[in-house]
C-alpha cells in the first residue's frame, strides 16, 4: 500500500466540514484543544494506514514540499 497524498477537493461539503472542526473545539481550553487535535490526527492517520501518504502529508504540512 503505497499511495500518493490526494490534495484535490474530495470533501463534498467543505464548509460543513470546517464548521464541524471548529465546533469540536468549542469550550475547550488550550490543552484540551491540543489533545483533541492530537486524537483526530491519530484516528485519521490510522484510518489512512499508509505511512508513505502520512509522510507526504507531514512534509506538505511543514511546507517542505515544492510549490506549497
Amino acid at each position: 500500500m503505497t499511495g500518493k497524498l490526494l490534495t484535490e477537493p474530495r470533501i463534498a461539503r467543505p464548509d460543513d466540514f470546517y464548521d464541524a472542526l471548529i465546533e469540536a473545539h468549542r469550550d475547550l481550553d488550550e490543552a484540551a484543544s491540543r489533545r483533541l487535535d492530537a486524537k483526530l490526527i491519530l484516528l485519521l492517520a490510522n484510518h489512512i494506514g499508509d505511512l508513505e501518504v502520512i509522510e507526504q502529508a507531514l512534509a506538505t504540512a511543514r511546507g517542505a514540499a515544492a510549490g506549497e
Partner: protein
Amino acid sequence: MPKSYENPRYAYRRAPDQDRAETHHPVIVVGAGLVGLTAAVDLASRGVATLVLDDDDTVSVGSRAICFAKRSLEICDRLGVAERMRAKGITWNRGRVFFRDREVYDFDLLPEPGHNWPAFVNLQQYYAEEWLVARAVELGRTEIRWKNLVAGIEPRGDGVRLTVETPDGPYHLTCDYLLAADGARSTIRRALGLEFKGRAFEDRFLISDVVMKADYPTERWFWFDPPFHGGHSALLHRQADDVWRIDLQLGPDADPEAEKDPGRVIPRLKAMLGPERDFELDWVSVYTFQCRRLERFRHGRVFFLGDSAHLVSPFGARGGNGGLQDADNLCWKLALVLAGRAPEALLDSYDAERIPAADENILNSTRSTDFISPKGAASLALRDAVLELAEHHAFARAMVNSGRLSKPAVLAGSPLNTADRGSFAGELVPGAPAADAPILGKGEDDWLLRHLGPDFTLLVFGTTEGLDPAALHALAEGPVPLRQILVGDGTASSLGLPVLTDCDGLARQRYEGDPGTCYLIRPDQHVAARLHGFDAAALATARDRALGRSPIEANERKAAAS
C-alpha cells in the same frame, strides 16, 4: 549501600607481576562488572585465560540492572550461572500500563510455550556479579585483581601497555588484547580521547529499592500520570528478597541531592503504596540518562564492551542485556583468533555486528524516552491522546511506549552471514539467535539451546538420507571443530550422529526443518547459514565465511593443503 544485601569484599593481594618490569598477558579485561565478568567467564569456558583488573573490591553497589532478558539468560546458561539466577530471581512475562487511574494496556512478552527461559528474570545485579566471580574461580582460568586501577594505556601495533595503580603503588603490564568493560565513565575511553556521541536527557528520575511484603503479581507495572504522582510516570518491578524497584519521574527541575533525602522519598512512596503498607527504604539514587555510543567499538587491540561503548536510557532494559550480548559476540571470535583458528579480520565483525545492535537499542530507548517524558505541549498532547485512545482502540495500544523491552539483536547485515539458499519464511534468518525448543536427549527432557555450542554446530533435520559420511567427517575435521547433531523423531538412522528427539515437533516448526534441512550455528548460537538439503561444499564455505575468511583466503588454504 543497600541493607538487604551485604556486599562481599574481595581482598587486594599483591601479585608477583608487581615486582617485575612488565609482565605480558594475552588478554586483559578492565572492569569486573557484569559485562567484564561475563567476558572473562565466556573466555574461560573456551579455554582462554584472562587477567581482570578492577578499581574496587566488590560487586555492584545497589541493584542497578535488574531485568535479565531471555537472551541474557540463555547466554548465562551457557556460562553456568543462569539456573541460580532463575532460582533466586523473579520470573515474569507480562507488563501492564496504566494511565491516570485506569489500566489501558497489557502485553505478554513470551506468549508461546516451549522455551526453557522466560522473557525476563528480575535479579539484582550484585547477585549476578557475585555468581560470575564464583564461576570464574571455579573454571580456574581467570585471575581477578581487585583495587587495581588502570591509570594509563599505551596502544601499540600488536598490543597494549598498561599502567596500573594499586595500594602498593603502580606497576606495568602488556597484553595482546584489551577488553574495556569499565563502564559509563570508562577510563580507557577517556585515555584514548574517544568521542562519545549522542543525546543527554534533562528529565531526572528517582530510582529506589524498597523492602516490603506485598502480593502484587510478578509483572512490570508502568503508570503514566497516576493519581499518586501526578504529571509524571512511575514504574514498579519485583526483585529477589522481597525487594521492589520503584522508579519515579521527577522532571527536569528536581534537585538531585534534596530528592535523595528519605524525608522526601518516603512520602512519595507512601502516596504510591498506600498508608497501610509497611516498607523499608533499601537504596535510593537520582539519575538522568543519556543515549550515546562510540563511533567504533574496536580500536586496534582495544575492544569496548557494554556501557563503555554505548549508553541507553533504562526503559527497555537494554543496557545490561546489550552488554551481555557484546561479550557473547566477541569472546568466541577472540578465542578462535588466539588459537590461530581464525584470521584477525574476524574481530572486525564485532563492530559490524554490535554497532547496528547498539543503534537499535539507542533508537528504541530514545523513542521510549520521548514518549515517557515528552518535550513541549504538542508532544505531550500527542502522548496523552495515544493513552486516552488506547483504552478503547487497539491501534493506539500499539503506540503506547513505556519501554520496548530488550530483544536479542538479529545480526541481519553481518558479513559473517551466508544468504539463504532455498526458501524460508520464518524469523530464523541468518544472523538471528537460534530458537529454543523442547527435545529429548538420551531419553531425558532437555532443551535444544543447551546443545548448541561452545563450537560451531551443524543441525540436520529429519533424516540422514543424502548425507555423505565422508563429507561429514571432512567438515568435522575442518579449521574449527564442528559438532553435528540430528534433530528428528528418533526413528531415522543417525549415521552415528548424536540424536535429539523433537518430542513436540516445535524444533521442526521453528526451524522450518523439513527433512534434510541444515543449519550452521555459530559458537554464540546465532544462525550462520541454513539450507534445504545437505551440501558439504556450501556448508564449508558458510563456515569459512563465519570465520571471517574471505573466499580467496579459504581457497588459498585449500590449495596449500592439497
